[in-house]
C-alpha cells in the first residue's frame, strides 16, 4: 500500500495515444528515474497523474497508498500527497512566492485556519538558504522574470515546504548550468526519505551524477521497455537509445 502504483495506464491527448499500457510502481523510500528520447510520453505521465484536463485516461489505474488518484481533481491529488515539479513553471503575476507557498500550505489545513506565520518564515528562509535563493525572492512574483535556474530552484523550494509523499520531477535538470544542477540535486537528496517516493524524469544522465537513483527505467513509445540500476543510465549516456530499440525489435 505504501507506494505509487501505476498499472496498464493508457493515456491519450487529442485522440492520439501517448502512454500505452504503462506500468510502474514506486514504493516509499525509493528514487526512480525515467529516461527516454523526446516524445515518448515522459511529460504526459507526469501531467496525467497530476490530473491535467488535456489528457484523457483511456484505461488503467493509478493509486497512491491505495487511493485512486485518477478519480480526483487536480487539487485533491496534490493534497493527497503528489507533487509535480514542472518542466516549465508557470508565471503568476502579482502573487509573491511567500504568499503562494503559504496559500498552498493553508489549503492543507481545515478551512479558515492559517499556518503560524513566524514558524513559516523561519522554515522558508532556512530552505531558501539551502537552495541558494536570495531572501528578496520571497516578495517577487511567482516565476515572473526568473531565469531558468531560478524557476527550477523555486520548484524545489515549494516541494521542500509542502513535503509531499510522492514527488515527480519533470525534466527539472533541463536548462540548468552545473552549479544550479548541483544545488537542485542537493535539494532533492535532502528530500530523500523512507516516507517518500521520488520519480525523476530526465533527458540526460548528468543529473544522475548527483542524484543516485535506485532504479532507472527507459521509456519508449509510451511504455517502459527496460529497467535497471544506475549503470543503465551510464550505458544510455555512452551508447544512446538505438541499441535498446534494436533489442526490442529482436524480441518481437
Amino acid at each position, binding site marked *: 500500500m505504501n507506494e505509487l502504483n501505476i498499472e496498464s495506464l493508457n493515456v491519450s491527448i487529442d485522440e492520439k495515444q501517448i502512454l500505452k499500457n504503462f506500468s510502474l510502481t514506486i514504493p516509499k523510500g525509493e528514487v526512480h528515474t525515467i529516461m527516454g528520447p523526446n516524445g515518448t510520453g515522459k511529460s504526459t505521465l507526469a501531467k496525467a497523474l497530476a490530473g491535467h484536463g488535456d489528457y484523457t485516461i483511456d484505461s488503467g489505474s493509478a493509486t497512491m497508498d491505495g487511493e485512486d488518484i485518477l478519480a480526483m481533481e487536480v487539487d485533491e491529488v*496534490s493534497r493527497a500527497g503528489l507533487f509535480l515539479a514542472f518542466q516549465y513553471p508557470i508565471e*503568476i503575476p502579482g502573487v509573491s512566492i511567500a504568499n503562494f507557498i503559504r496559500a498552498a500550505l493553508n489549503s492543507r489545513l481545515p478551512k479558515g485556519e492559517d499556518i503560524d506565520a513566524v514558524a513559516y518564515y523561519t522554515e522558508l528562509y532556512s530552505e531558501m538558504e539551502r537552495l541558494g535563493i536570495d531572501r528578496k525572492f520571497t516578495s517577487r512574483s511567482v516565476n515572473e522574470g526568473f531565469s531558468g535556474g531560478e524557476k527550477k530552484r523555486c520548484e524545489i523550494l515549494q516541494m521542500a515546504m509542502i513535503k509531499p509523499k510522492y514527488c515527480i520531477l519533470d525534466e527539472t535538470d533541463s536548462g540548468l548550468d552545473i552549479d544550479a544542477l548541483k544545488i537542485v540535486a542537493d535539494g532533492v537528496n535532502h528530500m530523500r526519505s523512507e516516507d517518500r517516493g521520488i520519480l525523476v524524469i530526465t533527458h540526460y544522465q548528468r543529473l544522475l551524477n548527483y542524484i543516485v537513483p535506485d532504479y532507472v527505467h527507459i521509456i519508449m513509445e509510451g511504455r517502459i521497455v527496460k529497467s535497471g540500476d544506475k549503470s543503465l543510465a551510464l550505458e544510455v549516456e555512452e551508447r544512446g537509445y538505438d541499441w535498446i530499440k534494436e533489442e526490442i525489435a529482436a524480441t518481437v
Partner: protein
Amino acid sequence: MSTEAAIDIDREKGNFSYDTDYEYDAGVGLSKDTVNYITDVKGEDDWVRAFRLKALEIFNSKPLPTHWATKDLENIDFDKFRYYLSKGQQPSRTWDDVPDDIKATFERLGIPEQERAFLAGVEAQFDSEAAYSRMKDELSKEGVIFVGSTEGLKDHPEIFRKYFGKVIPTGDNKFSALNSAVFSGGSFIYIPPGVKVKQPLQAYFRINAENFGQFERTLIIADEGAEVTYMEGCTAPKFETTTLHSAVVELVALKGAKIQYITVQNWSSNVFNLVTKRGLAEEDAEIKWIDCNIGSRLTMKYPGVILKGRGARGEVLSIALAGDGQHQDTGAKMIHAADDTTSNIIAKSISVGEGRSTYRGQVHIPKHLKGCRNNTECDALLINTNSRTDTYPAITVRGDDNSVQHEASVSKVNAEQIFYLMQRGLNEGEAMSLAVNGFINDLVKQFPMEYSVELKRLIDMEMEGSVG
C-alpha cells in the same frame, strides 16, 4: 485587527431590511411638487429652492446619454421611484438617540464598532437623511466642519455656497441635474488652513426602502495646507425592483491641500449607480480618488480632477469587478489647466462570467501649457470567455513640453495558471482568487490597510462563487 472591517463588503451581509415607518415621504414619481416638498421639509432658503427647480428643468430637458453609453439606462423608469424618505431631519449625535430600527441596521453593518476603532468622524445616512453624525471633539475645536448638506447650506453658507455646484455644474450631465433637483444627505466638510486630520472621516450610505432613489450631495473643502481622508461605503438590500443611486461629489483642495477620497461601493445587484465625482486642485494641491466598484447592476462613474493651479497633482486608482449581470462602466478624467501639473490614472478591471467592464478615460492637456505630465495605465483581466471588456482612453495632449504615457493590457487567467496553482493544493476558487488578487496587487498595496484586507476578502468570495 481592529481596523480590519472598514467597510463591510460581504454582499450577503448587507442583504436585509427592517420595516421602517417614515415620517416624511415625497411619494412616488418626480415633479415640481416633489422638489417643493423636499425643500419645504428641509426648510431651505429661497436660493436653494430656485437652484433645485432650475435643476429639475435641466434634468427634464436633457436626453439620456445612450448614444455612447449602455442602453440599459433606458430601463430606468423615473416615475416609479420614491425621491425622499426620512424619519426626521436632525441626525443624532449619539447612537443611543438613533431610532431602534435604524440603529439595528447600522449595528449589523458594524459602523459604531468601526467608529470606535479608527475613525475621526462618522455620518450614517439611512435612505434620504443622516440618522447619525458625529465627529471627535478635538476636530470641532480646530474648526473642522463635518455636517450634512442641508445643515451645511443653512448654517455655513459663507463657506459652502461659494463652491456648491461650481466644480460640477447642474447641467454637467442628466444625473448631476437630477441630483441637484432632489439632493438630500451627503457630507459637507471644511478643513481649516493647515489642519491635518489624521484619522479618516467616514460616511456610510444605506438604502433601506424599495423603489427608492438616494441622492446624496457631498462637498469637501480643504483650505490651504489642510489634509483629509474621506471614506464612503454603501450597501442596500436586494429587491426585485430597481433602486437608483445618483450622487454628486465635489472636492476643493486649495493651495497645498491634500484630499484623499476612498470609495468601496458594494451595492446590491438591482442598483443603478450613476455618480458624478470631480475635484478642483489649486496650486500644489493634491486630490486622490481611490475608487473600488464591486456591486450594482450598472455603475457609471468617472472621478475627475481639474488641475487648476500650478504644480497641482491628480490621481485616480480604480478597481472594478464585474460579475454575472453586472456592468462596471468606470474611468477617470484629468483636466490640466496650469503648468507643471501631473496626473496619474491606474485602472484595473476584472470581468467574471457574463460580467462586463468598460474603461473610459479623458485626459486633456492644452497646447499653451508647459511641464504637464500624465500617466495612464488600464489593465483588464478576463475570467472566462463570456466576459467582456472595452477601453476608451481619450487622451488629448497638445504642446511640445508636455508628456503622456499610456499603457493598456488585457489578460486572461489561463488554464495552465490554474493547473499550476491547483497542483499545489488550492481548489479552483482559491486558485482564481489568488490570480485575481495578484492582478490588482500593485494597486491595492497603495490602499490603506483596512481596505486592502476587505477587498481581498470580497474577491475571495466572488471567485469562489464564480466556479461551478
